[in-house]
């Protein structure tokens, strides 16, 4: 079976000429299906850029990126949009729920763009909300929900189109330790159900719950298979 995520000599360059910035430099990285891994690294290490490329929000400047066996670098915007819609579920630090919509409507949104029939949408969205433990909050607007609840709505939105990958960017960055735990439990459940979960974080406490840590620095992967148990080593990376 092909790996879900495969970087081959991926570089991402911003700017031109003298002001060129190499956000990623000839990165090779493979994440298999079903893995639960964290991407870590100091600010400016390229982990955000890597996440954008993994999430098909951005294309590499050079090199190839295979997602689910497809070379993303060769696809146009419409095809990327399609992949994001069907195969990837995004979870953001700031939740990014639409304030004018209810929890249910927020969760239905990806299906709206996927062209799922209206009746089925409501059904699937309700089930997704039940799955994250918010079956009783479907008519609430985001402002009527706590931060943890909002993030769970966002997770429900991420999983509702049955994606191959959950891509989470600092998903616990805006949460307290208790709700962080709730969210991590849900990720663990998703991982158990076979979904690949990739999470960008700078909190070792959070990264500890994953199976594998990919350590970025200066636009390169310097440690592709760090064991979360050796988390102590992170404080003094090579």
């Amino acid at each position, binding site marked *: 079976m092909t790996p879900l995520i495969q970087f081959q000599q991926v570089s991402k360059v911003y700017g031109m000429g003298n002001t060129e910035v190499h956000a990623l430099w000839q990165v090779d990285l493979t994440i298999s299906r079903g893995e639960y891994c964290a991407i870590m690294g100091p600010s400016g290490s390229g982990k955000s850029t890597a996440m954008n490329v993994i999430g098909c929000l951005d294309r590499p400047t050079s090199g190839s990126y295979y997602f689910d066996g497809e070379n993303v670098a060769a696809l146009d915007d419409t095809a990327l*949009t399609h992949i994001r819609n069907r195969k990837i579920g995004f979870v953001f630090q700031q939740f*990014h729920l*639409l*304030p004018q919509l209810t929890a249910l409507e927020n969760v239905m949104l990806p299906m*709206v763009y*996927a062209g799922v029939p209206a009746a089925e949408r409501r059904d699937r969205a309700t089930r997704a909300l039940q799955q994250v433990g918010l079956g009783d909050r479907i008519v609430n607007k985001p402002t009527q929900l706590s931060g943890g609840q909002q993030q769970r709505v966002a997770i429900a939105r991420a999983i509702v189109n049955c994606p191959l990958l959950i891509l989470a960017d600092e998903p616990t960055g805006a949460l307290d330790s208790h709700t962080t735990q709730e969210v991590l439990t849900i990720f663990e459940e998703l991982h158990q159900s076979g979904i690949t979960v990739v999470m960008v974080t700078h909190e070792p406490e959070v990264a500890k719950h994953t199976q594998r840590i990919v350590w970025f620095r200066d636009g390169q992967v310097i440690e592709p298979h760090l064991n979360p148990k050796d988390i102590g080593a992170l404080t003094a990376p090579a």
Partner: protein
Amino acid sequence: MDFTESLQMAVKTLTANKLRSSLTMLGIIIGNASVIAMVGIGEGAQKYINEQLQTLGPNVLFIVPGNRQTRELGGLEIPRTLVVADADAIQAQVPTVVGVAPEFSSRDLIVFRNRSANASVVGTNEQFLTVRSFEMAQGRFLSKLDLDRHSQVAVLGATLAERLFDQTPPIGQSIRIRGASFEIVGIMARKGSNLGLDYDDAVILPITTQASRLVGQRQSPYGIEVAFISVSAESRESMSRAEFQITNLLRLRHNIRDEDDFFIQSQDTLLNIAGTITGALTVMLAAIAGISLLVGGIGIMNIMLVSVRERTQEIGLRKAIGASQQDILAQFLIEAIILSIAGGIVGTGLGISGILVISTLTPFEAGVSMGAIAIAVGVSGGIGLFFGVFPARQAAKLDPIVALRTA
């Protein structure tokens, strides 16, 4: 994402921000209301003037002294060459003419016993009634005999009869004008004022009597001077022939070599002139209103641009989770179009109410024109589309990464 869904989404977004949505619509509302009201008023004015002209009488030509130039320049002495004898000659010699009524009018004090009223005194002949399509309410009109004999008889307009006589039956009573006394022989039916001439508030005398008893010193060396002569032609078709024949006859009678000292106006030319004026008026009003509609459209563009900026994160998120450029474009376009069409409909309602108010306050029968409504609503939709495209494209082109990162 299909259309009804985009529509629902847009409505939800717009209703979530009611104040802004209604303020945005305000420009379009005002623009639309003014287009409809202005066009309605313009058309009403046109209709009013047309009706006024129609009441002048069918197939009527007016012969007025002076040529186009002397009339237009003003200040110049209008020649006093058009006389009652011309009217008689037209009657006798122009075959396509069925009736001729010369008119001369002044304002004088009309006295009945201890009451008096200032009113027009119109001298004319017995054909006035038919040529100008008036009807009698009581008694009789002037007769040929009255004219020949310079009889001191008078016919009253309905308004003047009320003002002077109150309860007394007027027929058979005598009124005094400048010391001469006249017997009332009839009262005309009310017709309403007409291009500033109100025959309801007038007394009609034989023009011969008027000339000898009242005008006296204003006698022209050519005969009994008239202000104008109304001529009714046999039929609508014969009007141009009548005009031609009258022109020739009068040129001959007035010994004209180069420039005419009279001018013939038909109801048609009056209608045309009035039509041109009111048409220009309507266009001008519509243009002014159109500008406000345009300003409303720019308002929509403005607000939509602000809205794109403000909803950058939303746009980024929608793109991240699967909205295509077309989806985003459609979303913002539909919002703009809904705003402008809703504004258009509300504005139309306001415009119609404005027209109804104006109709009750003025003599204009301001019409609610279906065409104007269709155009206004269509145009406002078009404005929404036109001014919505730019902001919508801005939104669609946003890079989701940048958009999501925007705080």
